[in-house]
Structure formats: C-alpha cells, structure tokens
C-alpha cells in the first residue's frame, strides 16, 4: 500500500499592533511550503502583488528571515506598497501557522 502524506491546512491569525489583521492558510509538504494564502483586511497596492508573493513562497523552508526577505523582494520588484502590515508581519504569521502542530 502506498504511503499517503496527510495534508492539513494550518491556519493562523495575527493582529498587527496599530495595523491590520493577517490570516495565513498554510500547506506544508516535506518541510517546505506547498501552498500559502495570505488573507486579511490589510491594503496592498497593486493588489495582484499578493498572488506573486504567494507563488514566490512555494518551496521555502521554515526560516522566518528568508521568508520575510522573499516577500520584501517581491514588494520591491513590484514597486508595491503594503499598508497595515509589513513583510516581517506576514512572515511571523506564516511561522505561527507552521508551528501549530
């Protein structure tokens, strides 16, 4: 019988002090990000930058600094403005989901 890896979506919420609420839905396979969604009531201009960020994070390992750096890089490349949260806040929320179980 084939071994099936159990995939559960891990969810975390983080209210940024003086900022907005971040919600992360995270799927991990083989200790790497398989899928991630960054939700919440923050602002990001242009808005479709969120899809680039979510794509860029796939395959990353559990390292808060490199996750934050990846997000920052996409923001800079896209000349995007994130309001109500920072790249570090998103990375922190991802780590909170990662460490859930």
């Amino acid at each position, binding site marked *: 019988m084939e071994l099936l890896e159990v995939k559960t979506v891990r969810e975390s919420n983080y209210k940024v002090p003086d*900022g*907005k*609420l971040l*919600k992360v*839905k995270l799927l991990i396979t083989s200790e790497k990000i398989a899928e991630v*969604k*960054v*939700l*919440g*009531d*923050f*602002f*990001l*201009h*242009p*808005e479709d930058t*969120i899809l680039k960020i979510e794509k860029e994070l796939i395959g990353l390992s559990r390292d808060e600094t490199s996750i934050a750096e990846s997000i920052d890089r996409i923001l800079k490349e896209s000349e995007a*403005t994130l*309001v*109500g949260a920072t790249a570090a806040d998103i990375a922190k929320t991802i780590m909170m989901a990662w460490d859930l179980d």
Partner: protein
Amino acid sequence: MEEFRFIDLEVHNAFENMAIDEAIMLSMKEGKAPPTLRLYRWNPSAVSIGTFQGMNDEVAVDFCDSKGINYIRRITGGGAVFHDYEGEVTYSIIMPKGHKLAPADILESYKLLCGGIVRALDYLDIKSEFKPINDVNAGGKKVSGNAMTRRHGCMLQHGTVLLDLDVNLMFTILKVPQEKISDKMIADVKERVTSIRDILDRDVSIEELRDAMRQGFSDALDIDLIEGGLSPEERETATRLAKEKYSSQEWNFSR
C-alpha cells in the same frame, strides 16, 4: 473651482454598485469620464469583503442566502462591511492618477479624502476625526470605514458612513464563532463602533446624511459638484461587469 461629476444617491444591488465603480474607472482611463463623486445605497442589503479576505472566512453565507442578503468581494482591500439598506450611505470618489486630490502617499490620500466625511459630519453637528489607517472616528468610535485602490490609471476610494447600527445582526452576518458571541463581545463592539443616530439620538434621515455628504466633500475638497449620470458606455460596461465579474462565484469566492 474644479468640477466633479456628481452622481446623486442611487439604489442598486451589490453587483451593480461595485460594477459601476469599476466601469467609471475604465471609462476615465480612456479619458472619457471626468473626476466623479457618487453616493449610493445597497438594495438588497449586502456585505462586502476586502479583496484579500476569504468569503467563507468572513461571511455567514448560508444565513445571508436565507435572508436574501447579497455578499460580494470588493476590488479594494480592508475589511468586511455590512451595507444595511436602511442604515448607511456609501460613497465613491474616482479621479485620474496624478490628480491633485490623489497624492502618491496612501495615508495622506486617505486623510485628504476622509476630510470630506469629517466635514459632512460637521454639518450634522458631530465632531469627528480621521483615524489612520482608513477610518473616521467620532468620540473615539468608528463611524466611517474607507478603502482605496489604484488601478486602471485611476485612484478610487469608496467608504461607508453609518447611520444606524444593529450589532446583533452584524454578528450574525459576519462569521464569528457562535460561542464567541457573548454579551461582552457585543458590548466591546459598541465601544468601538457607533452611528450617526446613536450619536445624535434622533432619527436622522438618509436624505439628511446625503445632503451633508454632498456638502462635506464639496467644501473639504474645494470641488464644484455638477449633477450628472453614467454615460451609455459606462452603463454598458457596468452591466457587463455586474453579470460577468461581480455576481460570479469565481470572483466572490476566489479567496
């Protein structure tokens, strides 16, 4: 004084309302629409969610279906808003990128445009202030929420001004785990959110708020509001967007 087209208080469903906002942007991008301020209400009542929010995370969809309440994803960020037909007026203001009332800095932009709401509330004898990032507060409580986007070569900001507030209904529509809906939580929201009728303790009409908003934006932004309507082209685009985008499951449940 600079002229803005003014589309006076209209009533539409959620899909039409969001489609009209985007249709105006698309027309403006082509140089075919002037800077515009519109006022509108939502019938049926509806809940709109921010563009980055999950529909099923935020909205009690089944409850809304059972009550005929619409639910829709906006093109702007920010949070979920309940647009009660009897309890709020929504505005949108749209201008080309680079307009003097559309500074590059996002917070500065919110502050400038929310000045229209602060002035409108002044007309109703309510003292209020811009509360970063995107709120207007009266007596320390939120009375207006606002959200902006920059796309299609334009800047759009839309927002709601609360005339009335039914916290219990709001909690039923917005997804809050049942066990969390305690008296304390309802009390907490009443500490943070208010409405014009709560503040003034009288039955302020929709029309009175409409007049105050028109005057408030005109004064605060120093613009002349010229009554107008959508062009046939904008109307056509709006009809298409309402049908193909804003009422689609694909858009509303994309996150």
